[in-house]
């Protein structure tokens, strides 16, 4: 094994796992002293081209409380056809199918390269994917038109046997029946009335067929999903119908008087969508896709009144406890989200409006169910169109990059317990021996449900070392963790992916260096950030920042090399060197700072932060800045105001935005039209280079970032200026007027100042 970096990389590639610590402190006490908890980022469905699923079912440990899956770490007695569970040490018989097992004829799950393995389950009903469109009709004409086109387009991307349904809403909620010939039918609901699932199903006429259906289910489990609903029909049957229906979709016809918002019954619409699926396809992969162009203004889940003169709540209102609808609405959507999750469905929200649309209240719908949240200005933008199209992107096998109804189970060896998870999941409340009492994130369980996930969906999983200091682990002992993800593949099969990893234990006192070297500061930064963001949801912003600062200081105290009270002597080893910088940018990030962000934006950013993988998360924490100039090939530069130079083109990727910024000179050149002159073709190329790179990012990223092309002095330049480290501001005189860089008009502290303080505090014996 080469360096830890390589080891980490390899582990990530193979298992989709990154641990904050790759050598684990062997006792609880030591672990707590490490400041950064033992945790990992898990990408359960990480795309692996080299991992064809095996066509049989996993072998489970026979101990009822364990049920771990046979894995390469198990000890196998080939003669006795026995294997020992590496978690509970139970000795198990191999099942009859494994009688031919020998050292040379091992099943895949015993081979070390299959520390991650995927099983395909043949049992059970194969239910088609379900897509239920919930469409807001209170849109501007062109917005609605664009949305209709996108929806029509999406029909062609769906697999032919997928079921689709359509609910439209405005003042009323209409559930469209898709099977009918001739007259188009829809069931209409009042937008102001909260209905129970039972009522909804009764009103949709679903309850009666449900009776025979249940009988049918018990008799012929295969049959039921296909017979039922008039509201959900296979695409191949009704795509013409639905295309026409979408084409005829009109704006909400109810008059909106001057000074009022249109009445939008988002809350009821969602409730009906949830109720509909709940009644017809429980525990079947389904996406409820909500397209909304404004805030819910009536009924349960309303976020703002219909009077335009009362603006939608801001952070300021929330702090002042002035957001009168927020609590109730949030409760409504939380209730819906939990029901949806219980049924294994997920909710996507596509909110396109210039003002807020209530994402703050609705965020739980996506966060709990693993749905997507997309925020844009209008449905008539490429941001929405591309993003939406990307939902239906396919992998190399032609399958959607989405999976449904996953259950993630985590098993640990005895020295560890599970503290919790942060990510787009919901607890299944399965208490077990390996569940810690101390919660980090969503805890108290060893199983979580992830109703919708894709290959990049990443969870932060936090552990607690419970081994007591006085019960040392024998040298060379390894701790093991098994992640078992059962899910519905987009090809509708049930699959189980099993990842089993092991790490060495080390005694923190004697082997601190090992532990230190095995620190993955990137993973740690993201994991700590998730914790911070998680706390920010429920705590006051400043408290979270203080907590983060304290953690950072403690980490520096623990792992820094310094002389007491001498800040100049402070050093951090390589494996920690970037960490404070991440924290600096994290503190400034929109995940923790609400200033300048609307509550909706904050929710949106946090949503994505909690589900993206490590690379993307890092970009979010600390945007990437590339510089293009005549001085050399494009190069990454420091995210610092000093990097803003007149003769440079900068490309910044913050994950949510791609900003191309032309330095002052470049901008002038372009204005002068040099790029059009044949003799300055190189300038043209220079201008083009960042555009191409940006395109590349745009192509791959989900959701598609906001693309900003600006220049020195442009109003949009703020996107760049607000991100860079304000090393030069109007406050530090020495930088003022200098040729290099651009002063940022801010009172924020710069990284330099931040680091100075950090060092001072770290070396201070007072804290």
């Amino acid at each position, binding site marked *: 094994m080469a360096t830890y970096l390589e080891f980490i990389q390899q582990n990530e590639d193979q298992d989709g796992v990154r641990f904050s610590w790759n050598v684990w402190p062997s006792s609880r006490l030591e672990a707590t002293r490490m400041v950064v908890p033992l945790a990992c980022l898990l990408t359960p469905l990480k795309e692996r081209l080299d991992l064809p699923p095996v066509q049989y079912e996993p072998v489970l440990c026979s101990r009822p409380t364990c049920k771990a899956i046979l894995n390469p770490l198990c000890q196998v007695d080939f003669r006795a056809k026995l294997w020992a569970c590496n978690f509970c040490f139970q000795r198990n018989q191999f099942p009859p199918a494994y009688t031919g097992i020998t050292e040379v004829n091992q099943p895949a799950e015993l081979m070390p390269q299959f520390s991650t393995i995927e099983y395909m389950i043949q049992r059970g009903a194969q239910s088609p994917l379900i897509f239920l469109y919930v469409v807001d009709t209170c849109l501007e004409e062109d917005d609605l038109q664009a949305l209709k086109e996108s929806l029509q387009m999406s029909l062609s991307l769906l697999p032919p046997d997928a079921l689709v349904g359509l609910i439209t809403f405005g003042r009323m909620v209409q559930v469209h029946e898709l099977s009918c010939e001739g*007259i188009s039918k829809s069931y209409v609901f009042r937008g102001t009335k909260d209905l129970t699932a039972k009522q909804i199903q009764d009103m949709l006429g679903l309850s009666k067929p449900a009776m025979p259906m249940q009988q049918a289910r018990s008799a012929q489990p295969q049959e039921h999903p296909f017979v039922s609903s008039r509201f959900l029909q296979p695409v191949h049957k009704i795509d013409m119908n639905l295309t026409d229906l979408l084409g005829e979709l009109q704006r909400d016809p109810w008059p909106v008087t001057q000074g009022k918002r249109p009445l939008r019954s988002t809350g009821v619409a969602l409730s009906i969508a949830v109720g509909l699926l709940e009644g017809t396809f429980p525990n079947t992969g389904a996406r409820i896709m909500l397209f909304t162009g404004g805030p819910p203004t009536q009924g349960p889940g309303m976020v703002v009144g219909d009077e335009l003169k009362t603006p939608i709540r801001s952070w300021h209102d929330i702090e002042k406890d002035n957001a009168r609808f927020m609590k109730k609405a949030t409760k409504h959507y939380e209730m819906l989200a939990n029901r949806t999750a219980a049924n294994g469905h997920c909710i996507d929200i596509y909110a396109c409006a210039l003002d807020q649309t209530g994402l703050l209240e609705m965020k739980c719908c996506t966060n709990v169910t693993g749905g997507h949240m997309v925020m844009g200005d209008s449905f008539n933008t490429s941001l929405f169109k591309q993003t939406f199209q990307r939902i239906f992107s396919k992998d190399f096998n032609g399958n959607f990059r989405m999976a449904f109804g996953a259950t993630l189970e985590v098993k640990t060896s005895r020295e560890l317990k599970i503290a919790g998870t942060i990510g787009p999941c919901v607890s299944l409340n399965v208490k077990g021996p390996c569940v810690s009492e101390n919660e980090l994130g969503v805890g108290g369980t060893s199983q979580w449900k992830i109703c919708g996930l894709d290959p990049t969906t990443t969870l932060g999983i936090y552990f607690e070392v419970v081994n007591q200091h006085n019960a040392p682990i024998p040298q060379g002992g390894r701790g093991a963790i098994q992640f078992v993800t059962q899910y519905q593949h987009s090809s509708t099969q049930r699959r189980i992916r099993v990842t089993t990893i092991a790490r060495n234990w080390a005694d923190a006192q004697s082997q601190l260096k090992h532990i230190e070297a095995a620190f993955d500061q990137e993973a740690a930064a993201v994991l700590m950030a998730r914790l911070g963001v998680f706390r920010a949801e429920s705590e006051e912003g400043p408290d979270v920042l203080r907590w983060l600062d304290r953690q950072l200081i403690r980490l520096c105290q623990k792992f820094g090399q310094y002389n007491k009270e001498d800040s100049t002597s402070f050093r951090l080893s390589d494996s920690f060197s970037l960490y404070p910088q991440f924290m600096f940018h994290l503190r400034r990030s929109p995940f923790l700072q609400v200033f300048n962000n609307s509550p909706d934006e904050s929710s949106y950013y946090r949503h994505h932060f909690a589900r993206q993988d490590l690379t993307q998360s890092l970009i979010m924490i600390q945007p990437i800045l590339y510089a293009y100039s005549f001085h050399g090939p494009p190069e990454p530069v420091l995210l610092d105001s000093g990097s803003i130079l007149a003769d440079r083109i900068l490309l910044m990727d913050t994950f949510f935005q791609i900003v191309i910024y032309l330095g002052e000179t470049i901008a002038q050149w372009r204005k002068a039209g040099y790029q059009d002159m044949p003799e300055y073709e190189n300038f043209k190329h220079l201008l083009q280079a960042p555009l191409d790179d940006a395109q590349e990012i745009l192509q791959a990223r989900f959701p598609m970032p906001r693309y900003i092309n600006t220049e020195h002095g442009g109003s949009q330049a703020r996107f760049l200026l607000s991100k860079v480290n304000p090393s030069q501001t109007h406050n530090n005189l020495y930088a003022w007027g200098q040729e290099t860089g651009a002063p940022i008009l801010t009172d924020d502290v710069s990284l330099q100042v931040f680091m100075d303080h950090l060092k001072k505090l770290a070396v201070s014996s007072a804290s």
Partner: protein
Amino acid sequence: MNINQSAPPTLPYGQPQPAYPGYHPASYGGQPGSTVPPASYGPSYNGPVPGYQQTPPPGMSRAPPSSGVPPASTAQTPGGHATYSHFGQGDVQNGPSSTVQMQRHPGPQPFGPAPLAPVVSQPTVLQPYGPPPTSTQVTTQLAGMQISGAAAPAPPQTGLDYGPPTSGSFPNSGLYGSYPQGQAPPLNLAQGHPGTQPSQRSAPPQASSFTSPASGGPRMPSMTGPLLPGQGFGGPPVSQPNHVSSTPPQALPPGTQMTGPPGPPPSVHPSQAGYQLQQNGSFGPVRGPQPNYGSPYPGAPTFGSQPGPPQSLPPKRLDPDAIPSPIQVIEDDRNNRGSEPFVTDVRGQVPPLVTTNFLVKDQGNASPRYIRCTSYNIPCTSDVAKQAQVPLAAVIKPLARLPPEEASPYVVDHGESGPLRCNRCKAYMCPFMQFIEGGRRFQCCFCSCINDVPPQYFQHLDHTGRRVDAYDRPELSLGSYEFLATVDYCKNNKFPSPPAFIFMIDVSYNAIRSGLVRLLCEELKSLLDFLPREGGAEESAIRVGFVTYNKVLHFYNVKSSLAQPQMMVVSDVADMFVPLLDGFLVNVSESRTVITSLLDQIPEMFADTRETETVFAPVIQAGMEALKAAECAGKLFLFHTSLPIAEAPGKLKNRDDRKLINTDKEKTLFQAQTGAYQTLAKECVAQGCCVALFLFPNQYVDVATLSVVPQLTGGSVYKYACFQVENDQERFLSDLCRDVQKVVGFDAVMRVRTSTGIRAVDFFGAFYMSNTTDVELAGLDVDKTVTVEFKHDDRLNEESGALLQCALLYTSCAGQRRLRIHNLALNCCTQLADLYRNCETDTLINYMAKFAYRGVLNSPVKTVRDTLITQCAQILACYRKNCASPSSAGQLILPECMKLLPVYLNCVLKSDVLQPGAEVTTDDRAYVRQLVTSMDVAETNVFFYPRLLPLTKSPIENTTEPPAVRASEERLSNGDIYLLENGLNLFLWVGASVQQGVVQSLFNVSSFSHITSGLSVLPVLDNPLSKKVRGLIDSLRAQRSRYMKLIVVKQEDKLEMLFKHFLVEDKSLSGGASYVDFLCHMHKEIRQLLS
């Protein structure tokens, strides 16, 4: 039959008798023995019938005023005889029970012979009357009718005395035989009358006496009670002769005397024999003599004597022909008043009967088509009114259809200032307002307040104090006119939008299976072209919408821009709302293709439905909400099949329980099951949402509850039990077309203002009232009628009379807000006689029926019936006591104007609601109950007393409607074919021995036995008879607001039971009394009151 059992009357009767005997002998000669017979009267009722027959005159009563009567009587007698013999047979059949006999001796006849002045009087009187006839007025006045009935006591009881009683019937016949003879002469006389009127006149004594009475009371004595009245009237003014001649056969003696055993057989004896029926008909205010009337009565005693003769007949039964005949009255009125227009320039004029075709010229009072009153002469004080017990009521039909010859009310536009009103009582300008001070002010004719005339309305007065422009302004010269309303009269101060019609169709299993939905959808396609239009508008302004429903509702978007209609299902029936706004209510011509497409598809879409449950209240709610959302008034057409048992507001359960009938709980069958509908109706009214309900039940649907909303919103209910397309298609479609095309006023408020002194206190009809004065009508169509009752709250002034002003504020079909004003001036009187002389029995019955039908909601049916009887008895007793000339208490004396009151009232009493037969369902009763509530006078008239038309009696060439016959089985001859109609049902009764040729030409089958019983359509055959009959059926249908389904009934067939139910003069299976019996009973009641 209660009557029979009540013995009490014996005594009273007994007393009067004495008088009789004397007379009898005199008049009848042989009959004197009759004194004895009276005893025989007592026993049984049934008997009377035959007795009655003897005296043919009954029918006459009304039409020909006194003068006419006499001749008539004579004329009738013959007929009477014929029938009589008939009866004899009938008696035999009834035999046992019918020992009682009522004699109704034709007043005239006996009198004629009787030398005594009194006795003679009648016949003679007739003659004298004749003279008056000289004055050739058509108006018919009837002399009082006397009916002296002697009931033959039940054989056993009086057996000894009467020896014959048992055989009574027979002897009767024998007597009769003789009787007729006796009568014959008078007949001749009578007949002679017409011919030789002059001679009659010559009959000096009477004439003289007459005049004298006219001059003063004194004369009375000389006159025979009954006659007198008649004389008084007819004598001078009326030229009855015309009358007589016209209806020679039926003519009644002026005073029809009925001697019959009244209800109480036991009491019968002499008294019974004696009781007289006085009918004083004074039609027009015309007759001066009337006033005298009162006084003449004293003469009544003579009456007593008259009855005498009948007594001689006692053994005989009361002759049905001798009791007042509705047919006769109707015919007479037709003949007398049908030819000349009714001009409304005189205060307190009694209009012709509703059954008479006449033209109206509006010259200051509203046409009787709009308003009819129970009395056109109102007592000045409440004391008098209370004494008379005659309800003061007006039956108002504000939007009544007019014949093409009459112009609909002028529309007056006063521009922005709006109609001119009294500042205090808010009455609208009308011809009775008095302009004073040279025209600068006017005094309100209702409250006497003096108001300024606004400058723009000022006009000079002429020398009579009338405005110079009075004849240019409808509101100053006409009884009925309209104002254009200003915005102040509109809801929310906004002119209304044009109204909308919403068709709401039940598409549950039953409706689909019966073929209703398909039929309806097909029909609607063409029907939509005939929505009501205003004036000459090219297309209707009314928008339409469609909803179908079972236990959920389906709304349809039929916007013209759509290629296909869109269906929107609302399942939230608990909390109904309208799912769409734009495209629900559309203009027919714009959305024609979409609508057609929808109507094509509805039957297909639900063809396979299994849904049997329906909702009801949410449907109405939805329609109402839709109108609310569209901010307009309108009408919902609901087509509903079953009891709404689906879980929803207004859910009903089957609570039909026949065991409740005749218990104190019976009323619950008429009450709504839940208050929800009342509340809903209230909301509907507030929105101007009128609901028309078409029911197609296969079983109990609880009409009582379902009809609450239609009832309160001014809608109609139609019921087609066990609907089958083949059989009921025509009826349903015809009703539907008519209902859709009807002119309707929406969102209406009606207010009736009256002169100080009386006040409108009670209202009957299809409407809602949230306070005590304003009648709120979500919709008011041309057939809807409101009956208003008035009570005194002060004195009225004889001079100024009493004024009524009915103001109806409504939205027209085109969405115009208008005020329709009807004014009517009535006379006031201090004498009861004036009141009785100016009454209208048809209107009275209309009121009483509505009153009773409302009563069943709160009281046991028995109580309601008793109340009716009591009231009727009080009315008649009051008359007897105060207006009729003194006479033997045994005489039944009826006011001329009310002589049909007993027969009609009996019809009301035995109607399905008040006395249900075994085959009448709870739903039927509730249905009829609410139907009657908004009927006008003509409808109630024929509904309670059906028309029975012989088809084969008159020659085929005769194209006019054949004269009706009385609704009694004995009027049917088995060699004839009859049509019977009551406005709802239409029967064609075929006698068993009808000529084959007739059968062939009418039914296209070879013999009677081949006729399909229950047939509902006559084959279209090209022969005169077939054409005539079908033509007649068509014309009958055209007269009625609802299509009458034809049912062919063969004599002796089981369907005949159904038919017989409508022969209202007969005893009904459910226990309803026959006319004769009832009359006796009434007499008994009256006597009781008098004693």
